[in-house]
């Protein structure tokens, strides 16, 4: 992967500056600034409708910004001449609803993008896909179809599918929100492992315990703004802003 010219790994891998986003007349993001260094894990928390999904989706260009800047490895995302493919092989995303390809088996789901998009060698891709599925504890489900799996299993396939593109950054948008309490844990374990392996992760989550355990920094958003951010110990134990305190008192 060739990062954009001039970018070095000691600079933020993801940098969001004064990001605004409006849908029609409604401004959903009202000036967001976030910097993520390589290998960092950051969590974004906040009430429903505060713009967390919109924010995370601007990072891989799924939602275009209205104004402001988002760069990944120094490359501006919201540039009309952007090479979308180059961006998307750098940034993986996992959604709340898994969104697997229902007409392909688990193994095919994981192999599809590297084969079709990156046109990689089939044997190499298959080997990599198998080892990723083993890593998420699904080596025995390779030939199953998504509909035959539990939510937690589907979500782990979705993670493996993203990882098979060998991204530099992983985005997770409330990936446990649709799961049963018992299966939440197996997905969180997978993400934790990924973080421990040094993957740069941006997570939107309602799992406060998890956010506290895994993240280097937590951002609290409300009504399109970042109200407060800091290391988890500080944000969870000594929240400064009354809105953060109120939110935490509701969810903790």
């Amino acid at each position: 992967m060739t990062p954009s010219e001039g970018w070095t790994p000691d600079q933020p891998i993801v940098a969001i500056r004064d990001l605004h986003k409006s849908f029609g007349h409604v401004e959903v993001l009202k000036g967001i600034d976030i910097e993520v260094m390589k290998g960092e894990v950051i969590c974004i928390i906040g009430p429903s409708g505060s713009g967390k999904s919109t924010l995370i989706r601007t990072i891989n260009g799924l939602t275009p910004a209205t104004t402001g800047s988002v760069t990944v490895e120094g490359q501006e995302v919201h540039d009309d001449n952007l090479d979308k493919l180059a961006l998307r092989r750098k940034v993986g995303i996992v959604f709340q609803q898994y969104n697997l390809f229902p007409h392909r088996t688990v193994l095919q789901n994981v192999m599809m993008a590297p084969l079709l998009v990156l046109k990689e060698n089939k044997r190499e891709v298959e080997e990599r896909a198998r080892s990723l599925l083993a890593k998420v504890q699904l080596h025995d489900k390779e030939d199953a179809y998504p509909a035959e799996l539990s939510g937690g299993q589907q979500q782990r396939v979705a993670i493996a599918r993203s990882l098979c593109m060998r991204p530099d950054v992983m985005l997770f948008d409330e990936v446990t929100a649709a799961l049963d309490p018992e299966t939440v844990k197996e997905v969180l374990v997978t993400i934790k492992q990924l973080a421990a392996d040094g993957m740069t992760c941006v997570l939107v989550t309602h799992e406060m315990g998890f956010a506290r355990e895994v993240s280097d920094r937590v951002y609290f958003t409300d009504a399109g703004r970042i109200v407060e951010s800091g290391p988890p110990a500080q944000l969870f134990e000594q929240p400064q802003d009354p809105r953060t305190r109120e939110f935490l008192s509701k969810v903790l």
Partner: protein
Amino acid sequence: MLDLIAPFFERLYETTGLNFSPFYDSYDWGRLLEGMWVSVKLISAIIALSLVIGVLGAAAQTSKLRPLRWIVAAYIEIFRNTPPIVQLLFFYFGLGAITPQVDMGGWYEPMIGSFGWAVIAIGIFGGSYNVEIFRSGVEAVPHTTVEAAESLGFSNLKIFIYVTLPLAFRVCLPALTNNIISLAKTSSLAYVIAVPEITYSLSGIWSDNVNVPEMMVLLFVYYILLVAVIARAMTLLERKLALPGYGR
């Protein structure tokens, strides 16, 4: 084959007057086989063309180019709201008259013959329904699934081919089966422009033998069997494409 059944049908004719001439007369037998063969070729070509039009039309309707969507919409309106026989006559006599002739070494033949025009006319007619059928299938594909493919770097074309189309196809298979069967039946309209398909060849037989009722029975049986075969094939396809655990 004919040797086996000929004595029976000859005796049937002698004793009852029921004249199934293709089943004992080798010339009529040949005409029947030729008619069935042309009919099957015609139907296959019509279905193939209508499917290609259906897929391309549905893809065009998802396009960002508004004029392209208008053209497809106008096409659907025109061909769904006029009788197929009028369309066939329009293509054959209207457009057929202005298409160039080809030198066949001494004599001239139209570039597109009656078979070609029947395929084009009925294929385009059937395609107008298929566009709508495929479109409803495309609309049933969850936007989030498409988004996942987009996030993995798929181009729009790859999304359409590898994600949208296979999922849409499964959704619209029952409606597609209906239209394919309807097209198989509509193919008999090619009779009016003298395509030597089964209706046309049987009409040749009945005017020579004056055995209209018998040949009509044959025609009915042919279409009933044909439609049964198509329906069966589509059911098998549907079963083959069914996804384990999906749609519960």
